[in-house]
């Protein structure tokens, strides 16, 4: 037993003081998650702001926890929320039930429903954990306008689906940003 042995242990402490810490400063500094973490859902928009959701209920059908409620509605020329005939009139996700499995976003035929990496889904009020369409819709990016409005990017819904990415650039959605990730960026 040497004379430095009693303080040798402090060396570990001392050396660690200069290493990068593993501690996450939560909640003071953000809520970190892997970029592709599947957190809460988002209902995406077309580049002109029309909703991608067609109210088909395939997400509700796929959901093993019965957490999603959808009711479709009929687009008219006067009041249009999505390209084509049908839109999601009522859309609710109950986060008390959602198990985050992601089957719903796999089922979505229009890539309307995706998941963003926001995961702070806790509250002291059960009612607040039922997210409605207003809570779930992606924020409006530059170049988008709040529906209802007519189709700005083509004559019918085919133009939206076939030429989507090109149209997005034309509407001034910032370079390198897809319409689907807007919520994360907007929060930062």
């Amino acid at each position: 037993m040497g004379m430095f042995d009693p303080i040798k242990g402090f060396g570990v402490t001392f050396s660690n003081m200069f290493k990068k810490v593993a501690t996450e400063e939560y909640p003071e500094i953000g809520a970190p998650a892997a970029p592709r973490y599947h957190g809460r859902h988002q209902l995406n928009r077309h580049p002109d702001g029309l909703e991608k959701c067609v109210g088909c209920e395939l997400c509700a059908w796929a959901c093993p926890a019965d957490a999603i409620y959808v009711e479709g509605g009929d687009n008219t020329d006067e009041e249009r929320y999505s390209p084509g005939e049908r839109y999601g009139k009522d859309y609710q996700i109950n986060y008390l039930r959602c198990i985050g499995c992601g089957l719903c976003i796999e089922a979505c035929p229009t890539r309307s429903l995706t998941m963003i990496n926001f995961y702070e889904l806790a509250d002291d009020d059960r009612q607040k954990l039922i997210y409605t369409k207003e809570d779930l819709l992606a924020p409006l990016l530059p170049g988008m306008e709040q529906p209802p409005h007519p189709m700005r990017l083509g004559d019918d819904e085919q133009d939206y689906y076939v030429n989507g990415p090109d149209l997005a650039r034309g509407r001034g959605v910032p370079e390198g940003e897809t319409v689907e990730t807007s919520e994360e960026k907007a929060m930062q």
Partner: protein
Amino acid sequence: MTIAPDKSATAETPVPEGHVRLTIDGEEVIAPKGELLIRTAERLGTVIPRFCDHPLLDPAGACRQCLVEVEMNGRPMPKPQASCTMTVADGMVVKTQLTSPVADKAQQGVMELLLINHPLDCPICDKGGECPLQNQAMAHGRADSRFRDRKRTFPKPLPISTQVLLDRERCVLCQRCTRFSDQIAGDPFIDLLERGAHQQIGTAETADVFDLASRTSSGKPFHSYFSGNTIQICPVGALTSAQYRFRSRPFDLVSSPNVCEHCASGCAGRTDYRRGRVMRRLAGDDPEVNEEWLCDKGRFAFRYAQAADRLRRPLVRDRETGRLEEAPWTEALRVAAEGLAKARDGKGAAVLTGGRLTVEDAYAYSKFARIALRTNDIDFRARAHSPEELDFLASRVVGTNPDNGVTYAELENAPLVLCVAFEPEEESPIVFLRLRKAARNKGTKVVHVGQWSTPAVRKTFGELLACVPGGEAAAIEGIAEHATDLDEQLQQDGAVVLVGERAAEVPGLFSALHRLSSRTGARLAWVPRRAGERGALHAGALPTLLPGGRAVTDADARAEVERTWGVEAGALPTEPGRDTAGIVAAAASGELDALLVGGVDPDDLPDPALARKALAAGCFVVSLELRPSAVTEYADVVLPIAPVDEKSGSYLNWEGRRREFSVTLEGTGALPDCRVLDTLGVEMDADLFTQTPEAAWDDLSRLPTRPQRNGAPDVPHAQPPAPGSGQAVLATWRQLLDDGSLQVEEPHLAGTARRVVARLSKATAEGLGDRVTVSTGRGSVTLPVEVADLPDGVVWLPGNSEGSKVRASLGAGHGAVVSIAAGGER
């Protein structure tokens, strides 16, 4: 027609007469001659995929999806054959997709072809999830298509009426809709247009124009009362309903069997609801009654129960303000019971029930009147009626049922059906479909005694025996003398006479029909227009009848009812009560102290003005209602009751067949009439034992039918009215789709109603111009003129349509003399 358990056994079984032996997938089977291969295979448990095939439609072989390999006399047919058009033959060897790779490949190839132009827009299609094309493409199709070109597209949806939307991209041209319209409904409103790759379904309006893209048929609705069936039988999403558009998916829906509450046909149906709200109704499958069809009224008119103004809480009129205020049940029942008890001990109380009650509810009213109000003043006939009708119902109708009366099956097999004062398509559409089926398939002769050649006359390949309104009785009396051929036909075995509710407005008609039926042996059936009338008759909601057809004047019958009900002997009133008109007149002149009214519209009554006067006359009015009405305006207490979706019960249809249904929407808290009356009875110290519809039925079953068959009406027929100059005799009946109170909140349905016009003969219409004003001392109705084959001096008006409320505006009915004058230009 048995399926042999194994081969050796079948080989030994002799083939019965009219049957053949064939082999399907290596299994021997005996089938009746003429059976289609697809059905024989189905009996064996092999489902061959199909789109165009429908058991109630003639075979078409349009979609080619049901291809199978067939071998006859040891020689295989060179190509796969459509099993939906080929009938069985002796010694046939059939291989379906289960055993034949050729058939399987052929089916997959056909599926690939059908999907070439199909848009695959299942996510936005209403049929998605319950689509035969979706299911069979998964089961019998290939995963990939080799088609790489652009699909044929059409603008969509194309409204072919306000109710039916057509999407031509999704159509696989199976022609079920066109065959239904042509064969079953007789309204060929929809047909195949164009040829080859451009072939498409369309209507006359879409065919008119070259540029189909820019035109729809809006503004020119087709008039079919059965268009909804095409939506149900469409095997793809090509025909969808405007009402159900995008409302839900099959997996959201809970289905429950129901019975239609709109007319006396008694159709079986299916109600689909989502989260406590009815989304749609579909036809059920009941071969005895409606087969697989339903009229548009039964299919689409159900939102009245979801109306925003539906009564949910009892209302009691505040003495000071004079307004109806919400009140707790206990208070409302107490006020109602006190008022009724006071009236009972005073000048008396009477009951008007309307014709839309279930048997159980009608029974509760009937029992309530007898033991709580101690009166026979009860009548379900909220329409024109007569004492003659009462005798007719008591002597000829009550107690008939499918075992001893006329049935749908008998209509179908009858050599002759005589419809008197009965408009089958408007009043009982499923009876009409059966008449058409009988006439089309079995050559049944249908003779209509009416005023003009209505669409139903044409579509039943019928003959019109035209007479002046009010002259029907004379026409029936004249058959023996002036129409000997018809008289002979009426004497044939199985001849049937159908009579409608309008007969009550023709003096002597019921008597004439009774005599005709007794003389010729033709069977006589009464087809009321409302669903509850047969049940109310059975339950004794009439001034002269106790439950089961017992006469109130018969002491033995009364004693039996008293014993069954457990009331003391002599407790039941002995004198026949007042009928609807009598009750209304008595209330108006202050001879009654209270009225208990369940679902009656004063405008349906023979004299609407007097009915309103009676309600306003100051007697105590208790109203059991679904929604605010003309009665609740005057009521002192309003008790809310449950619509059919929220209660159980049963109807008796025109055959007397019991049509039972259970609760669709559970737990809404709405109470059926029988429960409300039971509680009200307890407040008045009378035990009805009708707490639930089931209990009410059990109680009623303890009084088996004991009709009195004597006392048939014998009223001489009156001379038909003779109009003077500037006058005409009014003919009127209601159209199926009109302003009825159960059709509110249905704009899409209302759009398919028939045009509201006045019909006159050419000579009568002369000089009137485009519009005619029909008037009486009470008021007038002005409608566009349409010339039809009516007798001269007769004008026909729809009974309760927009702009033509005959009772309310004219205070007159069928057979009344009215003034006609030019109605001027619009």
